[in-house]
């Protein structure tokens, strides 16, 4: 287990013991802005080195996966989990989208394992944020009955999703990184690269505090969601790993795509869905994504997905 995960545990324990420890709101914001930008920059610098013709087909395949995952999750939630249309769609959207911080921890893990990986993977993070959310909203709006079957305001929806903080910073970082190239970014590496792991540790401390505060949500959500929050990432990781192998990713890249598939969004998705799908109860989706799946991925999931990827790269 990477030491950064210990910071997450510290946060969880502090909160469960009702410690007064609290990170200022502005610090939370700052750290998340930093992580998004830094990941984008890192990916952008690498992206510039690769021909579009090579990356484009992979990108399309990855987007396709982002569209399919929520479609798999929805019926399970709706018919096995007995959640209503809105909640099922919203939870599906969270699991269809991705968690940037889980990716960052995965990155640290892959680097530590010393295996090769496609350094432009942050591109896939940006690409995977959006489709899951869009499909989730479409599901809810087309399957809802009666008055709830509102028309979708496509303009407002596109705005909410594509101009949300996380997409803007990730894509902005990717573009700046690929325009500026390694030499252009080099004078900024003191901030954006050298501090990365430490900032990630600090952010995980905060996420531990937040995740532990969601425990009561889970009690209300019931056992089905807890099981769902563990089984879904494992199943999705296999899909991600298989696709990674299929599109020719290296072992590290396959692991990271598995991690992305397994991760559930808790920055972009909650923000967009609160506006686009207010009928859904955010307690359920955030409780599962943050209270179950995130800690699971951090501790047991990531090493497991690495094993899965290894099997495919015998």
């Amino acid at each position, binding site marked *: 287990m990477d030491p950064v995960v210990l910071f997450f545990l510290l946060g969880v324990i502090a909160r469960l013991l009702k410690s007064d420890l*609290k*990170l200022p*709101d502005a610090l*939370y*914001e700052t750290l998340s802005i930093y992580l998004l930008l830094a990941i984008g920059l890192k990916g952008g610098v690498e992206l510039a080195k690769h021909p579009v013709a090579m990356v484009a087909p992979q990108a399309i395949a990855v987007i396709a996966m982002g569209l399919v995952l929520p479609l798999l999750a929805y019926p399970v939630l709706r018919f096995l989990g007995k959640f209503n249309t809105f909640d099922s769609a919203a939870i599906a959207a969270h699991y269809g989208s991705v968690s940037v911080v889980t990716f960052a921890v995965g990155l640290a893990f892959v680097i530590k394992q010393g295996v090769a990986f496609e350094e432009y993977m942050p591109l896939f993070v940006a690409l995977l944020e959006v489709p899951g959310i869009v499909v989730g909203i479409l599901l809810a709006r087309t399957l809802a009955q009666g008055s709830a079957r509102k028309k979708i305001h496509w303009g407002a929806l596109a705005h909410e999703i594509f101009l949300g903080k996380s997409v803007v910073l990730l894509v902005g970082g990717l573009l700046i990184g690929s325009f500026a190239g390694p030499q252009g970014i080099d004078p900024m590496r003191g901030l954006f690269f050298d501090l990365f792991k430490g900032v990630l540790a600090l952010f995980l401390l*905060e996420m531990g*505090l*937040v995740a532990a*505060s969601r425990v009561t949500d889970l009690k209300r959500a019931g056992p089905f969601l807890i099981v769902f929050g563990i089984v879904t990432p494992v199943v999705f990781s296999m899909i991600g790993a298989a696709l990674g192998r299929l599109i020719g990713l290296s072992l590290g890249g396959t692991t990271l795509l598995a991690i992305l598939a397994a991760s559930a969004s808790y*920055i972009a998705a*909650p*923000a967009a869905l*609160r*506006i686009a799908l*207010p*009928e859904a109860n*955010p*307690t359920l989706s*955030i409780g599962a994504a943050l209270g179950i799946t995130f800690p699971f991925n951090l501790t047991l999931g990531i090493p497991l997905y690495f094993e899965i990827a290894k099997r495919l790269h015998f």
Partner: protein
Amino acid sequence: MQTHPKKLLVIIGESALEKFLVRDIKQFGAHGYTIADVRGGGTHGTREAVWEGDRSIRMEVICDEAVAKKIAEYVLSVYAINFSLSLYFGDVTVIRGDKF
């Protein structure tokens, strides 16, 4: 010094609503608003503002009684079903009556 009676409408709710509320109150004829970041608790549980989805705002609007009522009715009917939201009225007086 002449003063004019006005209504104070206070809306406390999820910060995701901020931009919609700003748009709405103008549409109903309010001339201004003031927003503070707050935390709190109510029937929808505790909102501690430790995290993006968990932030709340307190919006204060000084306006004519009729405007306040229209805003309140609209806000309750549109947002209160799905969002944590509280709302109350107070009586205040102002000096520059046409400003509000």
